[in-house]
């Protein structure tokens, strides 16, 4: 089990191989369908994004509400392919890591390689367990989107697997 600190460095990304089990510690941002659509549309127009994505890792998640006393509600990954339309653009703008679940299309994998980035898969449906590794969250933008708003998460030993590494190896293709 490799321990990785966030934000990711180019050196760290080079050591990651598809299939590696890793534990992430540090900060990541969240965003899924609706937030991606907004970021993408701004980027297409050449406008400034409300969050600096350079060097960031984004977690595709829409958490359940937190019960009193909890930092976050259950927060497992959502299916990544729905972000495939937007991910290459964000990677070209400096995004370094993505966390989700399931397959990505060829365009995303090419963009991962082109930008020396990485795609991690967390276990779909293990939301209550994964939430234990999320220690703190704070809003960044798009709060009107509710569960789909962009937030910053501070995570400790967040469990996932390298699904697509910087050379373009895809864990789902080896099956």
């Amino acid at each position, binding site marked *: 089990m490799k321990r990785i600190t966030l934000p990711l460095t180019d050196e760290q990304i080079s050591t990651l191989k598809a299939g590696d089990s890793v534990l992430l510690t540090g900060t990541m941002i969240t965003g899924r369908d609706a937030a991606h659509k907004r970021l993408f549309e701004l980027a297409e127009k050449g406008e400034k994004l409300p969050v600096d994505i350079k060097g960031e890792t984004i977690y595709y998640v829409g958490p359940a509400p937190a019960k009193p006393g909890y930092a976050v509600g259950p927060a497992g990954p959502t299916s990544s392919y729905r972000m495939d339309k937007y991910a290459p653009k964000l990677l070209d703008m400096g995004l370094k890591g993505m966390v989700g679940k399931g397959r990505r299309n060829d365009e995303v994998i090419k963009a991962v390689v082109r930008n020396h980035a990485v795609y991690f898969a967390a276990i779909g449906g293990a939301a209550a367990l994964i939430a234990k590794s999320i220690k703190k969250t704070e809003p960044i933008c798009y709060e009107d989107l509710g569960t789909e708003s962009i937030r910053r998460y501070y995570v400790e030993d967040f469990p996932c697997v390298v699904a697509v590494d910087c050379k373009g190896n895809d864990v789902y293709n080896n*099956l």
Partner: protein
Amino acid sequence: METRKINAREITETVKKLFMDCNYFIGEDILNALEKARENETSDTAESVLSQIIENDKIAAEEEIPMCQDTGIAVLFVEYGDKVFIDGDFEQAVQQGVREAYTDGYLRKSVVDDPVFDRINTKDNTPAIIHTRIVSGDKIRITAGGKGFGSENMSAIKMLTPSYGVEGVKSFILDTVRAAGPNPCPPIVVGVGIGGTFERAAQLAKKATFRSIDTSNPDERYRALEKELLDEINKMGFGPAGLGGKTCALGVNIETSPTHIAGMPVAVNICCHAARHKTAEI
């Protein structure tokens, strides 16, 4: 049989409890199947993924929090006794139960009003999808589940025609599951509806996912088909979380209906390993 009066509030309370319970408490059939699957796995990754899923489900039950953040769109199958008289509005009572479960139970509100243009969250997870059947009697039986869309999106329907035969049915089901692969949070439960019309097949497929995986189709030919398909799916190798292994599905449930001389519709509704559903009778 005399008419029996049921207070609308009782329906609301029942529906509320069903949705909270199905999100917090994993079905015993599923938990047993996950544990059996873990013993059967030989790869460390598959074993570890199943252990994490089992641990997750135990945390959810102990802490009474949802096992998955996608607490689903509310789907209910209602068998409504024709001797029941409701003191109030049935539809509103059900929607209120959903509203209260998702609000008071810390469940995620995942429903948007308009599917194409506005996509504004309704903020209380209503409206629920209610399938009602009038039956003889003075009771109301409700089976409810929160359907997540990671798996719902991987579902498919095809209007097969009679000459496809059982081989055509098998191919379509297996092709659908293969195409879904790692996406719908395997190990999955596969609900299959065969026959009827376009919409009946889809409804039966959903109903099949709401059946315990410890049960089988009463017709031995379909029972054999359920078993054969489960074996074939588990040979696909995508495994738990799609990271490889022997456990791709926990169960295949088939429901059938008489159909037209020209048709043989087949619907495949895929469900993740949470397979949420609970039943209550009022």
